């Protein structure tokens, strides 16, 4: 008969951490969002909430691929943590940075010359998480930090505490 393991955090997802370092390629948006979705499933998120997290992560990693290194090879670090019933995700690059973060976060703001870039990446990160922080300095890089807590509407949320 299966025994539930509860002691010392063994068998509970809270406190779990994950770190991934990948090249700043668009393909890694998919890798990172898939990894975060599996990792975040340690908390009672609904499927819709996991989909929202995937969008937010994909936007941040996609920005590293599109903007951070000007097409040159570079690195992206994804850090995720389940703490006190919420997920905290950091996506960091060491690229060109953003000189005016408040402006960059405005919906429809983009520095891209591609007319198909609509500049909604930060707006989606904001929309689909509970909190979004952006630390950046020109020439030093960018750190995007997002936090999201399950709404408590997932099936099974009642017994998973």
């Amino acid at each position: 008969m299966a025994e539930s393991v509860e002691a010392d955090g063994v068998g509970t997802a809270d406190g779990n951490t994950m770190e991934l370092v990948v090249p700043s390629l668009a393909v890694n948006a998919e890798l990172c969002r898939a990894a975060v979705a599996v990792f975040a499933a340690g908390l009672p998120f609904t499927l819709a909430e996991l989909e929202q997290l995937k969008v937010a992560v994909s936007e941040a990693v996609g920005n590293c691929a599109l903007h951070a290194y000007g097409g040159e090879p570079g690195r992206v670090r994804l850090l995720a943590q389940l703490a006190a019933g919420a997920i905290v995700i950091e996506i960091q690059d060491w690229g060109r940075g953003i000189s005016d973060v408040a402006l960059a976060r405005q919906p429809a703001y983009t520095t891209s010359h591609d007319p198909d870039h609509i500049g909604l990446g930060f707006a989606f990160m904001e929309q689909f998480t509970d909190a979004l922080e952006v630390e950046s300095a020109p020439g030093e890089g960018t750190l995007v930090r997002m936090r999201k807590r399950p709404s408590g509407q997932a099936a099974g949320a009642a017994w998973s505490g």
Partner: protein
Amino acid sequence: MGPVPKRPCAPPAGWWGRGGARVDLSREFRDGAVVVRVSGDLDVQSADSFRRRVDGWMAEDCARLVLNLSKVTFLDSTGLGVLLGRIRKAEATGCRLAVVPPPGVARRLLDMAALGRAVPLFRSERSALDGEAQTHG
């Protein structure tokens, strides 16, 4: 800002910037319209190949185009941007475009960009071809 990770993870030469398209496209001619069915993830990785293929097809025949996104499993701002770009292009070239939206969060992204104001949305490919009642909300 923490330190740059020491060990570089450089991919092999020539590989940089490449990536397989994770979106499948098919084209079919039905009832005098071009039906383009999209399945998979329309994102920062696949948006370019999506744009190239659809633009190629639009250049060949674009009197009436139905863009069926009902099998799109993931959408991000880059994917949404190329969709909006195709809508603008259809308007500019006199192409009658109809869209069958994706489900779930991808649909919400379309709504956040008010895509339904730029192009008629239909609940199914059939109703798009028939020009029937549009979906709301």
